[in-house]
């Protein structure tokens, strides 16, 4: 009988463990793997990938009717929305402070504090807060949120190369986790982690958002950049070994396959099912290449993705 040797790689590095929450809140630890995603024969996935649900501080104007009907009136209140997200099985609540965008209401620190307070008291799950991705506004609202959430170890983002110092400083001061966002490029991702560490953020207080391309809209780029980041980390590069967050729902539901309600080819099939599978397959693709947190939008996608993660990691 052929004795097939099990081809085990001797990785020298491992993914950092990053904790969100705690201190009275529930906590979730992500990362900790010392092998490639879902491989069981050569290492351990210390923590299963987490599923976050996206919540907005303002009722979205242009969301698919399928999302609107799934969430109903909860869309009008971030607290109610977060509570429902917890009921639907979210491990983490991911709050986008969209209304701070100059074109979406240009709200400021006081509104951000109110939103943060509502969400933090509505649920005991770990929370991530991200700004509108406009530098000055991000700094304004995230510093405000940081203060309200002091000690509760929330995630704050997005730190980008050109705008990371203020957010990093507030993360350090209040004990939060910085989300480092870079545009699908391995060196930029590493570079930003280095910059954050240089200003004093602990490496285990950083999550990377390497930018998500949805299925059919750049997924293959995200897939390979994440795979390369993961391999670099396993080969011992401590500046690429931060766990990764992917904004799967946001990217997937913005594409025509999910957005268009009529006038699409018949071969695209049922609109709801297609939208759900689009989100699920985007999530699965990125989990396979190394995502540690996937941020989703539809409750049914959350259920499906969680069920499969359970089965793959048990």
């Amino acid at each position, binding site marked *: 009988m052929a004795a*097939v040797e099990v081809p085990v790689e001797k990785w020298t590095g491992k993914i950092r463990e990053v904790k969100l929450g705690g201190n009275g809140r529930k906590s979730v630890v992500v990362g900790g793997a010392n092998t490639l995603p879902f491989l069981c024969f050569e290492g351990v996935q210390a923590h299963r990938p987490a599923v976050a649900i996206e919540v907005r501080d303002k009722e979205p104007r242009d969301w698919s009717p399928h999302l609107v009907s799934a969430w109903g009136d909860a869309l009008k209140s971030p607290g109610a929305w977060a509570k429902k997200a917890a009921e639907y099985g979210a491990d983490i609540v991911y709050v986008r402070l969209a209304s701070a965008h100059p074109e979406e209401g240009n709200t400021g620190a006081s509104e951000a504090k109110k939103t943060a307070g509502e969400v933090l008291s509505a649920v005991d799950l770990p929370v991530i807060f991200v700004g509108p991705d406009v530098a000055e506004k991000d700094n304004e609202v995230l510093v405000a949120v940081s203060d309200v959430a002091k000690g509760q170890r929330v995630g704050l983002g997005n730190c980008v190369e050109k705008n990371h110092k203020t957010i990093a400083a507030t993360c350090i001061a209040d004990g939060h986790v910085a989300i480092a966002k870079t545009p699908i490029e391995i060196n930029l991702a590493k570079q930003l982690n280095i910059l954050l560490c240089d200003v004093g953020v602990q490496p285990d207080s950083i999550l990377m958002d390497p930018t998500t391309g949805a299925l059919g809209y750049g997924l*293959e780029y995200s897939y390979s950049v994440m795979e390369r980041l993961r391999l670099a980390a396993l080969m011992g590069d401590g500046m690429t070994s931060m766990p990764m967050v992917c904004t799967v729902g946001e990217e997937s539901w913005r594409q025509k396959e999910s957005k268009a309600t009529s006038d699409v080819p018949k071969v695209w*099939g049922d609109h709801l099912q297609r939208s759900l599978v689009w989100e699920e397959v985007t999530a699965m*693709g990125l989990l396979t290449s190394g995502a540690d947190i996937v941020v989703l939008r539809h409750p049914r996608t959350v259920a499906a993705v969680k069920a499969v993660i359970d089965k793959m990691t048990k």
Partner: protein
Amino acid sequence: MALTGIEIYKFLPKTNCKKCNFPTCLAFAMKVASRVVDISACPDLSPESRAALESAGRPPIRLVTLGGDGHKVEVGNETVLFRHEKTFYHPPALLVRVKDTMPKADIEKLVEEVDAYQVERVGMKLSMDGFAVHNASKDADKFVQAVEAVTAKSNLVLMLMSENPVAMEAATAKVASRKPLLHAATKDNWNAMLEVAKKHACPLVVRETSGLNELSDLSEKTSQAGVEDIVLDAGINDFRSSVDLLTQIRRQALKKNFRPLGYPVVTFPGELAASADEEVLLAAQHIAKYAGVIVLEHFSPAVAYPLLTLRLNIYTDPQKPIQMAAGVYEVGAPKAESPLCVTTNFSLTYFSVAGEIEASGFPSWLLVCDTEGLSVLTAWAAGKFDAERIAKAVKQFNAGDKVSHKSVILPGKVAVLRGELEDELSGWKVLVGPPEAMDIGGFFKRTWKA
């Protein structure tokens, strides 16, 4: 594994006799390595050297052709573990299972639907590859009838699934020219199944679910017995162990050059799934890592489309984004007074825009700028889609000669380029379209008097 020139040189006569029309054996070897000429151009190569070269040059994962008359699909011959290392070459075949216990009318309906299914993306037509006809009844006549019902409706690839060599022979004899993939030779039926595969020169699945040692033994025995077109079945259908097994097989083949596992692998992501949603997620994982043939239990367009799209994404060459030639394209049958739109030469961008223009009922001219295959914002951020480049393209392709109005529509995402472009293109009016192509129809309706 492809051999280098030096490795090939070692096998040559080293006489520099020039009969191959190259000055030296080494020069010839280099050309063979880069596939400019075939090794057979050297008349003095000894049979032993030729055999050794062929065996050393054999790909670590065999290329297996499924199908004969009608539709053909090639699977296997992958060379890397990670797509960024080079690219993945042969997308896994997606087959839908048809059980011979289904009523004939249901079989026909399913087969017609799968056969006709075709969805267009980035100018490519994506479709399913065929059917796995399963002898679930264990009755040879029923199996033959089901196979005939399928082949009467479709030319797509066939995999025939039966443990019973008699049923297999009966069904294969009916469709031998279609070169079905036979599933499966096991420890118990090996001799007889092997004979069916040999007799009809069909590719054969070797199935052994107790472990990779046992699977390797069976596959080695099969190739030694003269059947080389092998597909491996390690019973991969489980959420927990799929990626383990697929990774181990791929690593054995590529990193250890271990021949008995150097074949494409078939998987069954729906066998243990609780729902069609779970099946599609496991199938998605199998597409990324590392299936060669995937047998699905369910088919519906809303699931097939995302899976086919994932397969296209994963199997796109990372070194070259799919791109278009720059130039002025006609979408519909535009006239001089039709709109002139500008976009980039990333195919995904081009086809998104062209598709929406077509659907809008406003035929248009579409000026495609060379952005080295980058999307609108990516190209803009990389400095490859700016006012200067757009103006240059307008002039280079004489866009002004096509239209009577001298106005050009920019993608909404690069609205910032408007002022600069007006400066660069004196006498032109620059309009800003919507950020997403799907809103182009509404934009034309509001702004364009056709």
